[in-house]
C-alpha cells in the first residue's frame, strides 16, 4: 500500500470530521472460559470527541480495560465481540487484521498501566518510540533516531539525544511513562487510550505524567479515553465520565455532574466510600459485599445485591435497567434514579486520639535509627560506599494510636519497618518496644517481642501460602510460637474469623477461593492470633478495589478501638493516610523531614517536600481543579547511595538557597510552626511561592 499518499488522504478526512472520534454501539465482549461464554462487556454505548478526556471508572472486573482493547481488536483470540465500534468513521468489529494493524499506532495510541513492563527491556527506548511510525511508512528508518529525540523532548525528557540509545531500565518510572506517552503520540493519533496510566506511579510523578499527557493532547487535539479506578485522577483530568459496573455503563455525564449529582446509586456509593484528602472524615461509608465476577452476574440490575435504594424492589432483581437520559445531559441505568436523595459527603472530623493520650507510655519508640547497606566494587568486593536507606528517623507509636509514614517509593519506609521488626540490622540508633531496647537482640530473645508486633503485607495475593487452608494460615503464627492450644485452638480461630468479618464456615477453604478483600481480612486475622499490641501495616489497601479498601480501613479502625492496638501505617496514598492517622511522619530519601498531628500536616505543613506532595495529590473534587495551585517537583528521587549535599531535598526544592546546598538542616524552631520539620526555610505556603515554583518548572 502506498502509505504516504494514503496517510495524507486519511489526515484530510480526519480533519474535516466533526463527529465523534470513537463511537461505540452495543459493544458486547465475552470470553470462552471452561467451555462457557462469560460476558465481560454487556452492550455499552460510548462516544468520545476530539479535545476531550473521557474517563471510564470502575472496579476490577467491571470490563473497563476489555472495552478499551476492543477498540482496535487487541483482545485475545478467546474473545467473542459483537456490536459496532467506529474509529474515525471506520468499522473496527469484523475488520480485516491488516486494516486493524494500520489503525493501531496511526489512528489510536495506547498507554498501559505499568511502565516497568510495557516497554521491551532489551530494546533501545528511542527505537521503541518510533518503531510504529517506521512500520506504517510515516517515517524513514534513517530519520527515526532524530524523530525519537524530538518526541522525547516534547514529553520533557531531559537530554533526549542521549536518552534515545538507552534501555528502559536506565529510565526512572516517570520517565518511562513519559516515553510511553511519546510513543503513543508518535503517529499523531486522533484517539489515545490510557489504561490506568499513573496507577503504578508516585503522586509527584503522577502529577508530572498527567500534565505532560494533557499538554500533548492540547497540542495534537486528540481524544483521550482514560481508564482508572482513582476518583481523584478523574476529578483532576476528566471532561466526561462513564462509570462501569459488572460489564455495563451505569452512569455517564460531565465530570462536574457526576461528582455533584451522581444519579446512580453505585456512583453515589463509590464517591462516599473514598477517603478524602481535603477533609478529615470519621468513618467511611462502605458498599457492602464485593464487585461481581463476570462468571456469576446477579440477575436484573447487577448492582442490586449491594444497593440500598433497590433493596427489596423486585423490579431491580428481575429487569435489567437500560441507560436512559436523566438530568441535564446525564444518563443513568437505574430504575429508581428519581428516588435518590442528594447527599453531601460527611466532613465530620475524626476524633484525634492524640490529646488524651499524651501521657500514655509509648509502645514503640524509634530513636534516630540508621540502616545502611554496603556498596561493593572491584575484584576484592571491597565496600566503597553505603546506601543510606534509612538515615536517622525518630518516631513513636502509643497504644491505640495510628502513626503513618508517608513518602515516595525509594524513600526508605519499608526498610524502616523491616528494621523495626528486626528483619534488618540497625547500624545506629535504638528501637524500644514497651520500654525495652530490642536492637541487636538474638533470634531467641526477639521471639516474645515479635509476638506482640505483627506485620500486614501489601499484596494479599502473594503473601498467603496457597496450599494451606484458611484455618491453618491463621493458626500458623500461634503454632510457631507453641501457643495454639493455650490460645484456644479452633475456637480461637473461629473467633478471629468473626473478628475480621469472615464467616467461620470458610475456615476449611483455600486462599484461591477468597476474593482480594477477604484475603486481606485473612492476612489481618493471622496477625491478630497472638494478641499483638502493635501492627505494622505496609500499604495494606493499595492492592484493593476502592469499595473494598473502605471496608478494610473501617475494619482496621474497629479493631484498633476494640483491642487498643498501635498502628504503624505505611502508605503513599495521602487520602487514606489522612483518613486513618492520628499523627503523620513524612520521609524523603531516608530522612524524616516533617512530623506532626494528622490535621496539622494536612492544613499547616511547613516543609517544602510535604507541601509539594500535598499539592501533587489529586483531590476528588472537580470544582477545585482550576482553583488550586500546583507545585510539580522536578526530576526524580536521587540515588540514596550518593545523596545530595546539605539538605537532601534541595535539588528539587522551590525554596532552596545556598545554605541548603551546604548545610544539613536542623529541626526548625520557629514558634509559629504547628509541626516538627527539618528544614532551613520551614513555613506555610505563600501563594506567591506557587507562582514562582510553577514558573521555574517552565510550564510542566
Amino acid at each position: 500500500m502506498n502509505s504516504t499518499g494514503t496517510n495524507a488522504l486519511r489526515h484530510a478526512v480526519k480533519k474535516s470530521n466533526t463527529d465523534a472520534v470513537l463511537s461505540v454501539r452495543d459493544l458486547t465482549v465475552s470470553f470462552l472460559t471452561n467451555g462457557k461464554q462469560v460476558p465481560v462487556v454487556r452492550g455499552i454505548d460510548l462516544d468520545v470527541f476530539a479535545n476531550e478526556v473521557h474517563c471510564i471508572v470502575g472496579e476490577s472486573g467491571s470490563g473497563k480495560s476489555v472495552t478499551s482493547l476492543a477498540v482496535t481488536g487487541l483482545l485475545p483470540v478467546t474473545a467473542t465481540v459483537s456490536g459496532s465500534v467506529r474509529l474515525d468513521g471506520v468499522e473496527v468489529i469484523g475488520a480485516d487484521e491488516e486494516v486493524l494493524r494500520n489503525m493501531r499506532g496511526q489512528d489510536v495510541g495506547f498507554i498501559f498501566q505499568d511502565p516497568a513492563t510495557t516497554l521491551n527491556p532489551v530494546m533501545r527506548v528511542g527505537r521503541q518510540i518510533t518503531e510504529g511510525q517506521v512500520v506504517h511508512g510515516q517515517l524513514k528508518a534513517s530519520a527515526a533516531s532524530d524523530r525519537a529525540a524530538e518526541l522525547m523532548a516534547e514529553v520533557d525528557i531531559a537530554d533526549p539525544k542521549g536518552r534515545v540509545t538507552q534501555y528502559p531500565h536506565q529510565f526512572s518510572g516517570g520517565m518511562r511513562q513519559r516515553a510511553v506517552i511519546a510513543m503513543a503520540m508518535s503517529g499523531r493519533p486522533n484517539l489515545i487510550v490510557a489504561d490506568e496510566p499513573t496507577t503504578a506511579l508516585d503522586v509527584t510523578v503522577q502529577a508530572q505524567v498527567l500534565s505532560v499527557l494533557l499538554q500533548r493532547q492540547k497540542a495534537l487535539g486528540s481524544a483521550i479515553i482514560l481508564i482508572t479506578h482513582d476518583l481523584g485522577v478523574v476529578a483532576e483530568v476528566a471532561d466526561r465520565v462513564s462509570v462501569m459496573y459488572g460489564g455495563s455503563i451505569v452512569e455517564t455525564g460531565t465530570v462536574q455532574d457526576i461528582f455533584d449529582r451522581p444519579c446512580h446509586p453505585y456512583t453515589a456509593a463509590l464517591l462516599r466510600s473514598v477517603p478524602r484528602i481535603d477533609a478529615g472524615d470519621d468513618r467511611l461509608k462502605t458498599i457492602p459485599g464485593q464487585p461481581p465476577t463476570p462468571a456469576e452476574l446477579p440477575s436484573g440490575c447487577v448492582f442490586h445485591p449491594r444497593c440500598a435504594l433497590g433493596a427489596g424492589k423486585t423490579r431491580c432483581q428481575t429487569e435489567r435497567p437500560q441507560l436512559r437520559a436523566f438530568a441535564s445531559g446525564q444518563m443513568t441505568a437505574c430504575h429508581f434514579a428519581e428516588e435518590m436523595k442528594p447527599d453531601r459527603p460527611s466532613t465530620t472530623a475524626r476524633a484525634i486520639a492524640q490529646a488524651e493520650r499524651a501521657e500514655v507510655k509509648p509502645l514503640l519508640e524509634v530513636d534516630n535509627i540508621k540502616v545502611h547497606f554496603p556498596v561493593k566494587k572491584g575484584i576484592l568486593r571491597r565496600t566503597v560506599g553505603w546506601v543510606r536507606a534509612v538515615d536517622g528517623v525518630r518516631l513513636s507509636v502509643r497504644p491505640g494510636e495510628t502513626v503513618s509514614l508517608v513518602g515516595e517509593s525509594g524513600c526508605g519506609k519499608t526498610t524502616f519497618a523491616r528494621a523495626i521488626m528486626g528483619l534488618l540490622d540497625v547500624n545506629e540508633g535504638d528501637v524500644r518496644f514497651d520500654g525495652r531496647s530490642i536492637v541487636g537482640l538474638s533470634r531467641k530473645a526477639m521471639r516474645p517481642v515479635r509476638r506482640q508486633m505483627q506485620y500486614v503485607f501489601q499484596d494479599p495475593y502473594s503473601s498467603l501460602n496457597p496450599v494451606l487452608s484458611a484455618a491453618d494460615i491463621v493458626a500458623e503464627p500461634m503454632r510457631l510460637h507453641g501457643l495454639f492450644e493455650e490460645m484456644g485452638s479452633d475456637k480461637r480461630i473461629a473467633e478471629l474469623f468473626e473478628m475480621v468479618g469472615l464467616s467461620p464456615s470458610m475456615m476449611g477453604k483455600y486462599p484461591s477461593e477468597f476474593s482480594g478483600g477477604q484475603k486481606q481480612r485473612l492476612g489481618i486475622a493471622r496477625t491478630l492470633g497472638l494478641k499483638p499490641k502493635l501492627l505494622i501495616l505496609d500499604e495494606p489497601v493499595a492492592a484493593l478495589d476502592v469499595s473494598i479498601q473502605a471496608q478494610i480501613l473501617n475494619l482496621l479502625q474497629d479493631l484498633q478501638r476494640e483491642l487498643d492496638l498501635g498502628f504503624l501505617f505505611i502508605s503513599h496514598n495521602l487520602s487514606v493516610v489522612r483518613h486513618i492517622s492520628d499523627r503523620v511522619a513524612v520521609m524523603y530519601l531516608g530522612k524524616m523531614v516533617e512530623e506532626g498531628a494528622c490535621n496539622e500536616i494536612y492544613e499547616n505543613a511547613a516543609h517544602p517536600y510535604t507541601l509539594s506532595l500535598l499539592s501533587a495529590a489529586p483531590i476528588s473534587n472537580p470544582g477545585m481543579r482550576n482553583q488550586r495551585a500546583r507545585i510539580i517537583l522536578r526530576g526524580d528521587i536521587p540515588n540514596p547511595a550518593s545523596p545530595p549535599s546539605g539538605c537532601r531535598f534541595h535539588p528539587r526544592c522551590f525554596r532552596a538557597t545556598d545554605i541548603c546546598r551546604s548545610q544539613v538542616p536542623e529541626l526548625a524552631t520557629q514558634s509559629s510552626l504547628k509541626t516538627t520539620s527539618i528544614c532551613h526555610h520551614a513555613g506555610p505556603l505563600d501563594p506567591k511561592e506557587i507562582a514562582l515554583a510553577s514558573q521555574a518548572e517552565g510550564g510542566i
Partner: protein
Amino acid sequence: MISYLIRRILQLVPVLLVASVAIWAMLYAVPGGPVAMIVGQDASQEQIDAATRELGLDRPLIVQYADWVGNAVSGDLGKSIFSKEPVVKLIGQRLPATIQLAVFSLLIALIISIPIAIISALNPGTWIDRVLSSWSALALAVPTFWLGILLVLLFAVELRWLPSASRYIPFWTAPLDAMRNTFLPALTLGVYVSGILARFLRASLVGELRSDYVRTARSKGLPERQIVGGHIMRNALIPFVTIVGLMLANFLGGSVVTEVVFTYPGLGRLLVQAISTRDYPLIQGIILVIIVIFMLINLAVDMLYAYIDPRIEHK
C-alpha cells in the same frame, strides 16, 4: 567488565581444588586399582609391591595428591599407566574430535528445535502444536544408542551413503569427509537434545508472548513477524542460552554412548577405556578437563547474558 572476568576466573581456582579432591576421594573409595590390572590375578606379594612402588602408590595419599596438583598447575597431568604416554597428549588427541562432534550436534539440535518452538508457541493448542510437541517427547524418549543403531542400519548398511564407523577428520582439512563422518553421531545427539531445547524455548516464548511489551508492540501496529523477530526472540533467548550452554558442556564432556556406538574417537570413549583399566592418572586428567570445560562454558554463558540483556552489567 575486565575486572569481572578476572574475578570470575579467580573464583575457578577454589572450585577446581575442591573438585580435584573429590576426584581423588572417588577413585580411592572404589575397590581395585591399577596394580591388580597390571600384575594379574595370580601375582605374588613381591610383584604387587614392586608394581605399587613403581607407580608411586606406596607413598602417603596426601603426598601423591600434592605431587599431582603441583604437576597439574604446570600443565603436567602425569603419564597414562598403560600406554605410558603423557595424559595431556592423550587428551589433546581426543579433544578436537569431541569439540567437532559437539559443535555439529548442537547445530543440528538448534536447527531442529528453534523452528519447532516458534511454530508451536505461535499456535498454542492447535493440531500443529500438538504434532510438534509430540516430536519433542519422542526425541526425548528414544534412547540414543537405539536411535544410533537405527541410523547406522539405514544410512550405512541399507543405503550405504555414510560410513558406519565414524572417523575423526578435522573439518578444515576435508570439510565434506568430515561431515560424512560426523553426521550420524551428530544427528543422534542432536535429535535427542532438540527435544529438550524445543520444549524449553517453546515455554519461554509462550511466557514472553503474554508479556505487556508484546501488547504494546501490537498496539503500535507492528506485524506479527516483527513482533516475534524484533521483540520476543531476544527476551526468550535469555533463559534459552542457559540450557544451550549446559547441553554444549554436556557434549564436550564426551558423549559416551554415542561415541561407543559409532566407535568415534572422542573424549568419552577414552574415559570409558581409562576407567575399565583403572588408569588413575588418565581418569583424573579427563575428569579435570571436563570440569574446566563446564566452568568455562558457564562463564561464557554469563558473558553472553550481558550481551543479550542490557539490564545485566558485569561489574
